[in-house]
């Protein structure tokens, strides 16, 4: 049996290794020790609340999270979960946050376009009325919806963190186009913008810096957000916390999933033991 398990495990390992393509020309994301990692991981609720604040005050002016409704913010394992309000629709936190938002709607009497205060059932509104407006305001680039962003990029929350802190001064010899910003962690190919002084252009391709250009200006500045729990709002802290928040946005059921998984695996292991014992007993007197 052990031989079988090893064989299966080896097959899986070989096969899953196959599609992993080289990451291209970007720096590998920095590893952040997030509390939600590993089979026993949990979200750190204070961190989620700080991350939410960064998101609301900074990212939400350009990005949407179309799949997130205000009531989600008060679900179990969410930033504003409170066990006194098991029904998230009754959560005063979700209600207060929703009421502060202005939601575009249609006046049911007159049919006019209006703005009304949000309710827990509303989804967090899109900062732009349409794609053209979003592109117009961002030099032609579209800020992507962030609802599933940590699943849509290699490196997940580590990548979000790295991207946000990854704007060094461009190395000398790199021409950054107007409206673009150099980022070490953003995948791209900089070879046609790279002409270091005193290096033969033929040789230059060997020293092309890692990273790429994107249309998002460095969004975070020291002290931009005031955290209610007194955490200093360094770029590093804000980037780390908004990374955790976006992990929750992407996978609100992450903790439930891991907890269920542990129970399932313990159950199946015991069940396997029991069935193996029956197997030994039934086959006891049969040569095979």
């Amino acid at each position, binding site marked *: *049996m052990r031989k079988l398990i090893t064989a299966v495990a080896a097959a899986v390992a070989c*096969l899953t290794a*196959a599609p992993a393509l080289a990451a291209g020309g970007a720096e590998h994301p920095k590893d952040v020790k997030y509390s939600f990692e590993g089979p026993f991981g949990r979200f750190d609720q204070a961190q989620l609340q700080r991350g939410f604040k960064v998101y609301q005050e900074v990212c939400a002016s350009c990005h949407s999270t179309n*799949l997130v409704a205000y009531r989600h913010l008060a679900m179990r394992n969410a930033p504003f979960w409170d066990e006194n309000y098991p029904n998230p629709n009754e959560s005063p936190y979700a209600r207060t946050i929703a009421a502060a938002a202005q939601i575009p709607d249609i006046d049911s009497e007159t049919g006019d376009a209006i703005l009304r205060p949000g309710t827990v059932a509303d989804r967090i509104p899109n900062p732009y009325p349409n794609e053209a407006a979003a592109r117009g305001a961002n030099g032609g680039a579209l800020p992507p919806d962030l609802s599933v962003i940590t699943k849509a990029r290699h490196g997940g929350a580590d990548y979000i963190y790295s991207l946000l802190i990854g704007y060094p001064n461009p190395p000398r010899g790199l021409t950054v186009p107007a409206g673009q910003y150099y980022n070490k962690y953003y*995948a791209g190919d900089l070879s046609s913008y790279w002409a270091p002084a005193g290096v033969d252009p033929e040789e230059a391709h060997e020293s092309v810096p890692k990273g790429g250009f994107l249309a998002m200006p460095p969004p975070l500045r020291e002290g931009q957000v005031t955290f209610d729990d007194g955490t200093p709002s360094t770029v590093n802290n804000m980037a780390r916390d908004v990374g955790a928040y976006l992990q929750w946005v992407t996978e609100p*059921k992450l903790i439930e999933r891991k907890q*269920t*998984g542990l129970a399932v*695996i313990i159950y199946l292991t015991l069940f396997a033991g029991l069935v193996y014992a029956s197997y030994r007993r039934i086959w006891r007197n049969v*040569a095979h």
Partner: protein
Amino acid sequence: MSGHSTYIPKSGFEKWLDARLPIIRLGYDAMVDYPTPRNLNYWWTFGGILTVLLLTQIVTGVVLAMHYTAHVDHAFASVERIMRDVNYGWMIRYIHSNGASMFFIATYIHMFRGLYYGSYKAPREVIWLLGCILFFLLIATAFLGYVLPWGQMSFHGAAVITNLIGAVPVVGGSILTWLQGGFAIDNPTLSRFFALHYLMPFMIAGVVGLHIWALHVPGNNNPVGVLIPQDLQRRDTVPFHPYYTVKDGFAIIVFLIMFSVFVFFNPNALGHADNYIPANPLVTPAHIVPEWYLLPFYAMLRAVPDKFGGVIVMFASIAVIFALPWLDTSKVRSNRYRPVAKQFFWLFVVTTLVLGYCGGQLPDQPVIPGVETFTLFDGQLNSYLWLTRLFTLMYFAYFLVVLPLLGLKETPLPVPPTISAPVLSHAGGDGGDGGAYGGSTHGGVVKPGAGYAGRPAVAEPERRG
């Protein structure tokens, strides 16, 4: 299903039903009293595992379909909303998406098992053919399913594969338009892919029924590979229940543990991050790769410079598997007794793994970075293009050269006349157990007992237990 039935209806209801629709008899003969060789190893548990996986895909799939919206504007969000707003939707969806990968792992092991032990040889050719049809339907089902979440890989993968049909000379273009329901992949394509993805698993279930029916005529093959003569049935087989229900059951649970590790702790490890970016026809991903289980075929497709040629090679790679029973000329089934064939078998396993690896790489990338070579026809010698070509040749050579010739040339090891001979030789000192089956088999000398009589073979080992 074959042979004579040993079912005796007991209650009044069973007698009544048996005279009208002998369905309990069918189940009893197929799953309870079905005589099964007693020397099957764990490689024989994958059929049971596959059955469980098929049921799992159907059940989770039907529930997903209740919440899924097959429309280009809503498909992506509807899948994501299943995972956040439907009770246990995340579990249903992750079981279904990882279930497809598990299905292929089990299918590949199941097929390699058949290849190693010669389970495709007479009298089991039809079982093998039906299995090949199942494999083909499975590939189609998984490909169609992968399009449904309408992410970047869904869309561009579908574009690459359907465009292959456009490579067919003369009629290709019109067939392509007809299949896509338009001049490009769009909403009509998504709706028909959903309809077909819903349909095909039930076709698979139907063919599984035929596959098992065909299996129950000659009975299972076994690691020794010899047929069990009618008069040795009692000694060399055990009834399926409880012997194999318990052994398969154990293997299924172990497999489910591995499955659960993916579903609960690494649900996206086998997928591609780009498929969480909503489909955008105007932005082509840097590397379009299919799911891991199709990579060997994708590699062979790309190895041929001509697009239509590539399509032919890809279909041929599956067609040769169908022809296998007539390509292998050896009289000996099990590779246990074919020392040379055994080595070629393992080389073939490595060949498919290397092809899978090549399928995930860029063709013009060097295999060994930094080594300068020369250009051979259309590519550097040191490139995945040429590595893929080499292994594509090896893939086809295994079926078309090695197996036909080896059967004629190789001298197999002596094959035991019955499965009990090797079974008893390593049964060791646990006490002349062969006697339980009626025949006297001490010392590996076979003196057949009474002919197959079903019940006693059930009762005796149980009584001793």
